């Protein structure tokens, strides 16, 4: 097993300046979200409506998927189905091969990250250019995204300057964000011109009309899809909503929750292929139908990938997205990841204080902190917690359950904390005393 969440977040915290900066950057986004939210009088009503629409769709998902397929086909769109990541990648490769495409532009899609589409295509001679600026930065750096909406949030402008300098020969040491953004614009324009097809993710798919909706701020999804005859949209089965009018709820919630904007700059609705063009939609399961069957955890499929829970999470802000080791980090990632591989991700449900802020900001009212708690129980039941920890917890449980033992234990602890030398309390087994002193304890005699 590679290094754990614990080790990686410890390493992240070692650079104090950087972790403080990361914490502040995300809190700033959270505050912007709060400001925007307070301008919408019916905010809570919207959250409830969004949550119910998603719950309704998920409990009728088979019917809505078939409706969607029929409507899309009637629009002249080619619909493909993929059971898993491998099939998704193969379907896309086959489409591209049919057109002899050797270079493709891709706008942001967490699904293609999940399926590891880029390495799959590159191994088969298809160059992939990520066109979202944040994604382009990390692609050039050779890293995965550390956040689902702000993929390069962990990178400083000085680092971006170095990355662009070595990739494109921009001025050394010039780390002005405007200068760097315009350099990326020029380079990406070239990529739009020289590629042969576009791939996008999907924010919403509408069963009634067979259209897909893609939200961006940069306009990269539109530049890519419109410049080429061939456009491909990849979507998970959970992206569906029944009616176009449901977007009246979701478009009011998404960008406000994500980045504190009233709406993304572009909310693009793709219903039919462009004249003379071809439009493909790939519908992907990859474990989602299994999650739908889980009594406790199915509602995590309501997620619209806004990232609000990530921005607000005190653990994420001080650990960085890469510590999670999963495509989707933060609270939502910590309830999605264990469903895919409990052994590998068993630590993630414990990377939380269970403060509940994530559930509080979630625009579709997923009870994230409750699910984190429930995943802990699953992890313990399946023996995915270290022997020491589970023994300690069993002992603590016995003590807390018995008032007499509890009182005796507490008086022992009080005595110990008052009279034992500090070195007895500050040792590697006592996590409470790492980097801080233990509190002063009053015994009855002091009162």
């Amino acid at each position, binding site marked *: 097993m590679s290094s754990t969440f614990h080790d990686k977040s410890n390493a992240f915290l070692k650079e104090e300046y950087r972790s403080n900066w990361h914490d502040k950057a995300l809190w700033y986004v959270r505050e912007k979200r709060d400001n925007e939210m307070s301008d919408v009088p019916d905010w809570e009503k919207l959250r409830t*409506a969004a949550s119910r629409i998603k719950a*309704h769709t998920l409990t009728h998902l088979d019917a809505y998927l078939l409706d969607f397929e029929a409507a899309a086909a009637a629009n002249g769109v080619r619909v493909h189905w993929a*059971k898993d990541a491998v099939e998704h990648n193969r379907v896309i490769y086959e489409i591209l091969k049919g057109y002899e495409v050797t270079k493709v532009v891709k706008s942001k899609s967490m699904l293609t990250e999940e399926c590891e589409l880029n390495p799959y295509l590159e191994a088969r001679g298809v160059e992939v250019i990520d066109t979202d600026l944040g994604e382009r930065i990390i692609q050039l750096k050779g890293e995965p995204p550390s956040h689902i909406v702000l993929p390069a949030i962990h990178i400083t402008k000085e680092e971006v300057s170095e990355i662009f300098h070595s990739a494109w020969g921009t001025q050394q040491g010039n780390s002005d964000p405007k200068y760097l953004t315009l350099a990326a614009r020029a380079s990406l*324009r070239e990529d739009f011109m020289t590629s042969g097809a576009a791939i996008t993710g999907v924010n919403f798919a509408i069963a009634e009309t067979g259209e897909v909706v893609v939200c961006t701020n940069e306009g*990269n999804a539109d530049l890519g899809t419109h410049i080429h005859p061939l456009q491909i949209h990849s979507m998970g089965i959970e992206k569906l909503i029944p009616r176009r*009018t449901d977007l009246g709820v979701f478009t009011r919630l998404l960008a406000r929750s994500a980045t504190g904007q009233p709406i993304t700059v572009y909310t693009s*609705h793709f219903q039919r292929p462009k004249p003379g063009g071809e439009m493909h939609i790939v519908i992907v399961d990859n474990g989602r139908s299994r999650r739908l069957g889980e009594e406790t955890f199915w509602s995590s499929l309501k997620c619209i990938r806004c990232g609000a829970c990530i921005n607000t999470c005190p653990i994420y802000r001080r650990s960085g997205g890469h510590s999670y080791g999963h495509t989707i980090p933060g609270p939502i990632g910590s309830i999605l990841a264990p469903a895919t591989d409990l052994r590998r991700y068993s630590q993630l449900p414990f990377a939380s204080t269970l403060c509940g802020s994530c559930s509080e900001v979630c625009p579709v009212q997923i009870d994230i902190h409750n699910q984190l708690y429930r995943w802990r129980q699953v992890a313990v039941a399946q023996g995915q917690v270290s022997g020491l920890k589970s023994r300690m917890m069993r002992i603590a449980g016995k003590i807390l359950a018995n008032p007499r033992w509890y009182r005796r234990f507490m008086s022992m602890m009080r005595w110990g904390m008052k009279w034992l030398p500090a070195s007895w309390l500050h040792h590697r087994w006592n996590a409470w005393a790492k980097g801080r002193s233990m509190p002063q304890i009053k015994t009855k005699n002091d009162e």
Partner: protein
Amino acid sequence: MSDSRDHIINRIRKALKGRAPVPLPLLEVSRTEPSLERFETALAKAGARYQRLADAGAALQYMKGLHPGESRWISCLPEQREGLDLAEGMDIKTLFPLEWAMVKGRFGVEENGAIWIEGGDLPHRMIPFMCETLAVVLDARQLVADMGQAYERIRGVRYDYGCFIAGPSKTADIEQTLVTGAQGPKALWVLVVG
């Protein structure tokens, strides 16, 4: 391919067995009257520039006045189809660089400054995205208060392609510093007429 479809649909049906279906909620559409003043405020916040003009002809003159001597421009308004020529079947890439383009906005949304454009009003879907400056001409009476009203308005409309545009292209991917003109237009003019 249809094997996978059946496989997925069957798995979903199995997963949903015994799950209580949740009813689809009715959507409440607000009755708020839109106001042009608040729309202007939202436009300013979205980083768009705003100008009140008499009609589409005046709008075209206004844009020409902002770009004297410029030849790389196109007006896609049905009543003012002017500028660069876009022949049928022509490779859209040959239209680069496009300094400015003018398109028709169907209606505006007061709460966020978004304007709805439709593919059928454009000679090519690429035009509003490939230009350096985009001008959207909007009839002052065509306003809705919020996104709920906006989607009510396009309920049942078949548009092939449609987009809400709220301000010029933007990014804050480098250290959360807002930069306009990320990849699409660097400036957006909203020219309200009538």
